[in-house]
Each structure stands twice: as C-alpha cells, then as structure tokens.
C-alpha cells in the first residue's frame, strides 16, 4: 500500500575505488599494490577465503567476491617453493577477482605484488585479525548492497521507539514532530527519510546528508531543529518500530477500539506495526503518539493492556456475578 516495490533502490555493484576510499578512513585499509584495477566491480556482499583455490581446487571458486588472505593462506603460500607458489597464485589471478585483502598486517610476497600489478588486481592490507576484518568488511558490504527506500514523512524517536509519521501533504506531520521535539523527544529526519534494510527483520531510518535536521513549517518556512533545540533534540539514525498514518477522520474507516488486533504494513519484506490515527478536534496527537510509544514498550516487555482486560472480562463472565462492583468495596472511614 504505502510503498511500491518499484522504488526500492538496491546497488548492484560498487567499484573497488569506492570500497577503498570508504574503508581507508573507517578501518585503515592500506593499498599494497600499485593503484591498478580500481575500476573493478564488487558484485557480491560475501567474502571469500581462497584457501582451496590456492591449493588448486577451483571448482565452485567464488572468484567474484572480495578475497581475504588470512594467516592460513599466507602460511600455506610460504610453505611452497617459489615455483609452486607462483603457480598457486597464478591459479587465482587467472580469475576476474575484484581485489585481495591481507589481514593482520600480513604482507604479500614480491611475486604476488608483481602478478597483481600485471593482472591489475589491487591488493589491500588491514591490521585487524581475520575474524574482525571479516566482520567489518561484511558489515560494510552488507550495508552497501542492502535495499533502501525513501519515504515522505517525519521520523522521531519517542521514548526510544522509532516512529514514522506518514500522511498527506499538509496534514501536520512536521507539526507533530516539532511538538514531540519540544517535549524532549528526538528528531531523526523530517520530510525525506531513507530507510535501509539491515539484516533480517530490521529497518534503520536516517535523513539525507543535505537536509539533516532542517524542516519546513508551513507558514514559517525552513527551520533548523538542531540549531534551535540543541543536540539533545536530534539523532542521526533510528530503528523503525511503528508507522503512524495521520488522516482526516473518515466515517467509513475502521479504527481499532480494543487494540487486540495488531495491524502491520510490509516495508521491504518486513512487517512493521502500523497505526492509523484519525485527526479530530480536541485530539492532541503528540500525547496520543507518546501513548502509542509507551504502549508499544509495555507490550514489548510483556504487558498488553488490551489482553489483560480481555482475560479479566472472561474470568468475570465465568464467575457469573450480576452486579458491577466498585474497585474498592469498603472505604474504611476514608472520606477524603
């Protein structure tokens, strides 16, 4: 309903150059060969340890992945005589591999660098242990290749719950967000929010680098929430937990009364709790939003008010008591 799958953006590849410039500052990736093959494309988010390929077994060799040389690959290569080592390296350099990473400050041998320069395959080094490298690289590539989508609305952290307000233009999403910020909650982004699928079941939202925490308030113009309310009023990213759709009260719509049924919407294959909130005179959307967040937290920690009242009612019906009883049946001379 609210998202057309057509508009999910997903990178098909990244260049080795992009990979290098991003990771140079993040994880201290160093270039160990000449600056060759930077236009090569990384098309797979997975990594590969080419131990078996070095040993000569190249069936099912995932050559299109980033290749990681850990201690075992280096030890194996060093155990070979020069001729065999060159032969072993040639086996994998004959494939179109995007690049090779040497972990734990391991250095490629002279023959390896020569071959790499000739075949135009860049070699990189990292100082971390192989498992850590794998973790950092996988996380980075996973993020690069993950599906993302931009949605129109206001994204706010309310009591630690990521709430996305959607609805027609001019219905008051920004105003609700501003009101929430005024009450001490934190704005993630207004207007254009980019949601990224992270792993299975998690969606993270953030603003765009141009707009950051600027927003438009109709009739006033553009304001900077960070400049106005300070750093405590913003955050840069937040997990999406609830989508709230604001709409003008519709007599024919079916608004939930008990809250027993859990409505969700599908966003990039993940079900996100969804609340349709009608706008009515006298209704304070900010407070209602806070209540939705608190109720979500209570449910998250195992207390569902609607279910509790439901089971109380069932019990009472079974007992067949006729009259409606007060919560206190004797006032104990307390006439206050």
């Amino acid at each position, binding site marked *: 309903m609210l998202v057309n799958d057509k*508009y*999910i*953006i997903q990178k098909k590849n990244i260049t080795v150059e992009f990979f290098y410039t991003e990771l140079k500052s993040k994880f201290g990736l160093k270039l160990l060969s000449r600056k060759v093959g930077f236009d090569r494309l990384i098309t797979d988010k997975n990594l590969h340890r080419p131990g078996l390929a070095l040993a000569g077994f190249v069936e099912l060799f995932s050559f299109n992945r980033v290749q990681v040389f850990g201690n075992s690959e280096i030890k194996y290569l060093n155990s070979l005589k020069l001729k065999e080592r060159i032969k072993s390296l040639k086996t994998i350099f004959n494939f179109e591999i995007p690049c090779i990473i040497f972990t734990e400050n391991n250095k490629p041998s002279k023959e390896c660098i020569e071959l790499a320069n000739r075949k135009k395959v860049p070699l990189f080094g990292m100082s971390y242990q192989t498992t850590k490298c794998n973790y950092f690289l996988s996380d980075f590539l996973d993020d690069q290749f993950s599906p993302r*989508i*931009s*949605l*129109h609305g206001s994204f706010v952290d309310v009591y630690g719950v990521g709430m996305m307000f959607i609805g*027609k*233009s*001019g219905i008051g999403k920004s105003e609700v967000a501003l009101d929430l910020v005024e009450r001490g909650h934190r704005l993630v982004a*207004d*207007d*254009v929010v980019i949601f990224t699928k992270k792993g299975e079941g998690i969606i993270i939202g953030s603003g*765009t680098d*141009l*707009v950051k925490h*600027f*927003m*438009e308030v109709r009739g006033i113009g*553009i304001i900077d929430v960070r400049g106005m309310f300070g750093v405590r009023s913003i955050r840069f990213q937040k997990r999406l937990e609830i989508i709230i759709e604001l709409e003008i009260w519709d007599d024919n719509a079916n608004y939930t009364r008990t809250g027993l049924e859990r409505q969700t919407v599908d966003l990039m294959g993940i079900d996100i709790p969804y609340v349709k909130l009608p706008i009515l005179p006298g209704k304070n959307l900010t407070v209602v939003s806070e209540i939705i967040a608190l109720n979500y937290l209570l449910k998250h920690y195992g207390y569902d008010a609607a279910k509790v009242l439901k089971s109380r009612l069932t019990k009472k019906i079974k007992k067949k008591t006729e009259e409606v009883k007060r919560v206190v049946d004797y006032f104990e001379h307390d006439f206050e």
Partner: protein
Amino acid sequence: MLEVKVKILNNAGLHTRPAATIVKLAAKYIADFFIYKDGFMVNGKSIIGVMTLAAEKGSELTLNFNGEDEQEASREIVDFFNRGFDEV
C-alpha cells in the same frame, strides 16, 4: 495516475527559487505529486523534499501525478519545467 519525464534545462539546476515555485504550484491541486530521480522518491509538495533532489542541469526526473485534477496539475508543472523555470 499520470507519469511525465522532464529534464532540467536551466544552468543553476533545481535550486531554492524554482523548488519553492514548484511546491506552490503543486499545493493548488488535490492530486498527489511525487518526483523520482534515480529511483529516489520525494513528495513534490514539500520544499525540503524537492530541494533534497539537488537536481543539476541535464538531470532527468519523473513526475508522478495522482488524483482527480492530475491533468491540470501536470500541465502547469510540466510547463514550468519545460520553460527552464523561466531562467533560460
């Protein structure tokens, strides 16, 4: 629903002034108005959204109109794009 492809014609690109004009034009109509650039979607009735596109000269946008007065809305807005935001 109506989809129209347009190109940015003026040298300065889709900067603040034309962005403001576009959202003002769009606000006159009931029809929903979305702009797509390289798969990225923004609401054409929001100034922040339109500015986010940072569309430079020559870039191609897809305008999407949806609603009862989509014909009129598209005519006026597409015309504004084709005039190069009156800056050509």
